């Protein structure tokens, strides 16, 4: 049943961490995931959602409690040696040997693979060429992160796993990592990465799987996910009333093309289909109520809205479920 067009398949993946003297933790509860060959799939989710657990099971570093895992059409425990030759990994947290230089470290990793890239060329790709003689304990956090990515790339992997590759990086370094991933993708290769950054998922990933509490709760291209919440634009505004109280959300819910209206931290957030219809009506409504507009911005719906929407909704659903029979 191996399918060459799917780089990663997991079905009903469950993982329970059992620590002596502590209640067991169910990190994954029936996670389903498929990564098509050649795509960049992002796992997006809050802290503790189970992203690292998932990716480490896929990397063959953790045993799932139950469930099926197929990587590049092969299975852990059967084809380990072949799998290790064909995947590249960057862990969420690794401190490589401080006293080695960048070039020495990369050479070491290169030596484990039958075929792969020239370490020097790989350093060029991650823009660490001029640091090649620097010891690791003299590198900045971002440079270390790029070296970790280089170590993942040096074996010319078909499938690249990156666990939070850009956490803690400055905007330029993040873009550098994105370029590396794009280049990998251009060669028809697959990437599975985890991230907390919406913009990263939106710009880099062909598809995003939103993970929450050990499950994938939504999967699709960023555009699909955004479309799914309805409306394409968000109007954020705040008002003040010198003569009386500020009205509640119900005062704006009936404006043209409004799909959703909520109170935000210091104002209102409208999700709308057609801002050119909504905004004039909104302004007219404000003058009727003799409200003064103190802030108004419009933007496209972002993945963040999807994320807040999804994880928020799920939370209530689960709470309801808890109370049910």
């Amino acid at each position, binding site marked *: 049943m191996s399918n060459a067009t799917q780089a990663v398949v997991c079905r009903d993946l469950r993982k329970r961490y059992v620590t002596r003297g502590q209640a067991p933790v169910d990190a994954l509860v029936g996670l389903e995931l498929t990564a098509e060959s050649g795509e960049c799939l992002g796992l997006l989710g809050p802290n503790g959602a189970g992203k690292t657990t998932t990716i480490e099971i896929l*990397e*063959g*570093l*953790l045993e799932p409690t139950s469930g099926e895992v197929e990587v590049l059409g092969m299975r852990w425990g059967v084809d380990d*040696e072949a799998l*290790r*030759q064909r995947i590249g*990994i960057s*862990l969420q*947290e*690794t*401190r*490589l*040997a401080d*006293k*080695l230089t960048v070039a*020495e*470290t990369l*050479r*070491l*990793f*290169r*030596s*484990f*693979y*039958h*075929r792969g890239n*020239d370490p020097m060329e790989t350093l060029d790709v991650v823009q660490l060429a001029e640091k090649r003689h620097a*010891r690791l304990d003299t590198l900045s956090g971002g440079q270390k992160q790029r070296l970790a990515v280089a*170590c993942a790339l040096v*074996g010319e992997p078909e499938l690249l796993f990156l666990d939070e590759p850009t956490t803690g990086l400055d905007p330029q370094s993040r873009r550098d990592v994105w370029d590396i991933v794009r280049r990998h993708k251009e060669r028809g290769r697959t990437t599975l990465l985890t991230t907390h950054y919406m913009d990263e998922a939106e710009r880099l990933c062909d598809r995003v799987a939103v993970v929450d509490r050990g499950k994938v709760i939504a999967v699709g291209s960023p555009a699909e996910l955004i479309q799914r919440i309805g409306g394409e634009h968000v109007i954020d505004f705040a008002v003040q009333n010198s003569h009386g109280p500020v009205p509640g959300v119900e005062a704006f819910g009936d404006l043209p093309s409004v799909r959703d209206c909520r109170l935000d931290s210091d104002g209102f957030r409208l999700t709308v289909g057609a801002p050119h219809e909504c905004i004039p009506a909104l302004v007219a409504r404000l003058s009727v109520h003799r409200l003064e507009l103190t802030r108004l911005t419009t933007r496209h719906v972002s993945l963040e809205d999807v994320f807040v929407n999804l994880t928020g909704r799920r939370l209530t659903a689960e709470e309801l479920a808890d109370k049910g029979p």
Partner: protein
Amino acid sequence: MKRYSPNWELFLCRMRMFYREPEAIFWTYGFPVLLTIGLGVAFRTKPPDKVQVAIEGARVLSDIRRTLEDDPAFQTFVGSAAQCEAWIRKGEAAVAIVYGEGIEYHADPTRPEAALARLKVDEAIQRAAGRSDAVGIKSVEVTARGARYIDFLIPGLVGMNLMGGGLWGIGFVTVDMRIRKLLKRLVATPMRKRDFFLSLIGSRMVFTVPEMLLLLLTGWMLFRVAIEGSWLAIAVVAGVGALSFAGLGLFLASRARKIETISGLMNAVMLPMWIFSGIFFSSKRFPDVLQPFIQALPLTQLNNALRAVITDGASLASQGVPLLILAAYGLVSFVLALRYFRWT
């Protein structure tokens, strides 16, 4: 395409990690040498002490005085009779020669060295005056080669170093790599686990060579500690010892996830050997009931074998039993380490 040897790269990296760590260099090479020098100086063998004799500065005693002054076995003080008495009282001289009603020896009988000093002084004086022995006996001085404390100490320190180096050099480094998740990162590559262990142990073996040479050379240059056995025998014994402790170090480090855990384990294993295995004093000093336990310690066997080849010049063949015991320790702990090794 360029070929890369994972064995060689792993080995090189391990070597670099070691020699770029100044503290590791000091504790492996500097400290043992300093310890050797310190102990060697503290316990160096001194020539026999001179006998301190006070002599009254009287003309009748001048012949005696000259005899004693010419004899290197005596240190003489010359003064008045009253001064001589004072020197005796203060313990600055063991015996005084004064002229009272003839020549008199004055000594404090409660002082242990007084009787011997009196005899030696008398012997020298009588012999100078022409007394000869009734029975002719030749006295031969015996200072056996390799019988000094430093001769005993150096092989013990070599053994102690092989133990410390093996346990710390392997165990500590392994746990540190586990804490850094470097082990996890490595096992996520196609690296063969065997290559990793071989590089760890191989590099440790290389580090022992300068370690041994430094200690033996320090002993020889500063204290003339002779090396009686063949270099081959010494190298083989040290090599097997180093392997044995490297295996033990790997075993102790196979599960530990904290530096505290590994430090505790190491100390618990090393402490009995520091005491019982004959580093600083012979393990024969312990009661017979303890001997089976003491002989079963790997360092006891290593120290015995090292002393045999270094000090007594024993052949390699005669050291089969200790070598076998050491090899067994190494092999068993290595196999257990591989079985229980934790990569994550």
